[in-house]
């Protein structure tokens, strides 16, 4: 068991993948200890899926190398494939078949006998709360049910490393929670999980380590707490009535919160705030200084603010794109 912990589940150095002129992944390095959850966080087009595809043997890196539990993905591809499970962004199960048939076919492909495949399929259906719809055609399944079944398929061979590409995108909040619970259970059983997500709160909820990527590069690699420290767990948005007071107000806020203030528009000030108690101080000081406000908001940080804090740019572009 000692040896087990010494081996990293994923060890990637300087991964590059180019499509034409576009460097989709541009020097990504990752290391994930066995038994942990790593979240790769980034907006659409950041290179998350391309990275996962290289780690999961779907495409060869143009440069760099990847070891999965010490096995090289390019030279020892078939070994690596026995150690991983991949749940892609698109449900990859058959619409025409039932949940049980889908699971059994994958069980057979992993080399289990008919009987074992059936037993495992039924166990998984039970675990994912799909037993009563086991023999219903998938075309009648909801998005959340499909996503869960898709995850279940990856678990048939009980792989020690599971890749989940945006497992909760498009799911309703309740199904999302169920998915989170399933992912946590995996790790309890000893699996290592790498998931990609666009949601900071998801990464925060699940991950031991968050890797933020943007434009194919790693811009941060930290624990959720470390990341939040750099961003501020929440952000204070103040709208000043009189634009002339903005500079003055910014100074006051910077002094009290001990953080950088950034001007979103001429009259809107945004600053990270760790301790909401300080809000009272900010408001009273501003009032004493005669600076009137037209709006006060405390918002959870969004991915865009993470990027802003990490790169000092891109925040506005991202907002406009959306």
């Amino acid at each position: 068991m000692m040896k087990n912990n010494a081996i990293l589940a994923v060890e990637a150095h300087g991964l590059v993948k180019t499509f034409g002129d576009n460097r989709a992944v541009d020097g990504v390095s990752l290391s994930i200890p066995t038994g942990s959850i790593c979240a790769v966080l980034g907006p659409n087009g950041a290179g998350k899926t391309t990275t996962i595809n290289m780690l999961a043997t779907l495409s060869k890196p143009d440069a760099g190398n990847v070891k999965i539990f010490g096995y090289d993905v390019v030279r020892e591809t078939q070994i690596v494939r026995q150690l991983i499970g991949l749940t892609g962004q698109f449900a990859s199960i058959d619409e025409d078949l039932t949940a049980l048939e889908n699971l059994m076919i994958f069980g057979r492909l992993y080399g289990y006998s008919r009987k074992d495949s059936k037993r495992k399929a039924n166990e998984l259906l039970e675990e994912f709360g799909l037993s009563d719809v086991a023999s219903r055609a998938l075309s009648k399944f909801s998005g959340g049910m499909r996503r869960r079944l898709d995850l279940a398929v990856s678990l048939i061979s009980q792989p020690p490393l599971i890749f989940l590409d945006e497992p909760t995108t498009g799911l309703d909040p309740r199904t999302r929670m169920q998915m989170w619970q399933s992912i946590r259970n995996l790790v309890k059983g000893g699996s290592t999980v790498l998931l990609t997500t666009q949601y900071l709160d998801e990464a925060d909820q699940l991950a031991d380590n968050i890797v933020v990527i943007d434009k194919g590069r790693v811009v941060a690699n930290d624990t959720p707490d470390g990341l939040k420290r750099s961003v501020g767990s929440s952000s204070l948005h103040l709208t000043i009535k009189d634009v002339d007071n903005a500079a003055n107000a910014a100074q006051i806020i910077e002094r009290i919160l001990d953080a950088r203030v950034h001007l979103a528009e001429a009259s809107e000030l945004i600053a990270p705030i760790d301790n909401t108690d300080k809000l009272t101080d900010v408001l009273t000081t501003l009032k004493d200084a005669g600076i009137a406000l037209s709006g006060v908001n405390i918002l959870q940080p969004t991915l865009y603010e993470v990027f802003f804090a990490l790169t000092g740019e891109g925040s506005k572009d991202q907002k406009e794109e959306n």
Partner: protein
Amino acid sequence: MTNTTIIPAVERKLKNRIGVGTTIRNTCTLTYRALLKMSKNPEIFVDFVVLPVMFTLLFTFLFGGAISGNIPNYLPVVIPGVLLMSSFTNCTTAGSKLREDVDKGTTSRFKSMPIARIAPLAGSLIADLVRYVMGGTTVFVTGYILGYRPEAGIPAVIFSILFMMFVAWCLSWVFAFISLCTKTISTASAIGVVVMFPLVFLSNAFVPAETMPSWLQYFVLQINPLSRVVIAVRHLLTYGTIGADFWFALFGTLAILVVFIPLTVNAYNHKA
């Protein structure tokens, strides 16, 4: 699963290659998958049951009198022709299911699994054998109802169906390759039609070549490989023996198979 402990990577027995046994097992599983999918979509039976019946009736009654003087005389000409046409039509759509897997992401999952690379392709194409056999049988049953009694008897009929199945199966790798290389499924099926029509109609499948202008005769008899297939089948059904055309058709299609298996597997692996 909550209480299942995952066996750590270091304690697993792993090997870095897929053996022949695994390849065969994977292919069987994926053939089963394709057949199961077929059985759940009965509308595809229109393709390989209704169409052959329709074509047999259409050609027999439309051209029978004009080409062979009467219908009974035309049946030995047209039945092998329709057999060819229905098999060939079926094989032009061979890649559509594969393409669906690629587009939906199923292929990516297969690719991330420790299974033989060729299994998803082979499974899908082998399941198609059922279509050729059903199509072929339909043609002969329809012919029988119209009064067709091949001189060489039932064994020759069965052998013809199997021969045509093999030819169509080899050619289906070409169409699978095309469907994997085109941007959309509809482009691929359009190409299939464009290839199918001239090859089937500019052959001796429905009309004896002797009535054609000499330059067309040259194409029909010397260039179009499908004419050889039709001649081989007619020969088989009439005399119950195998002629030179049979071997020509067999080795020709085998050569196509040998060339296109690696090409198609390669296209499939790159597409996902």
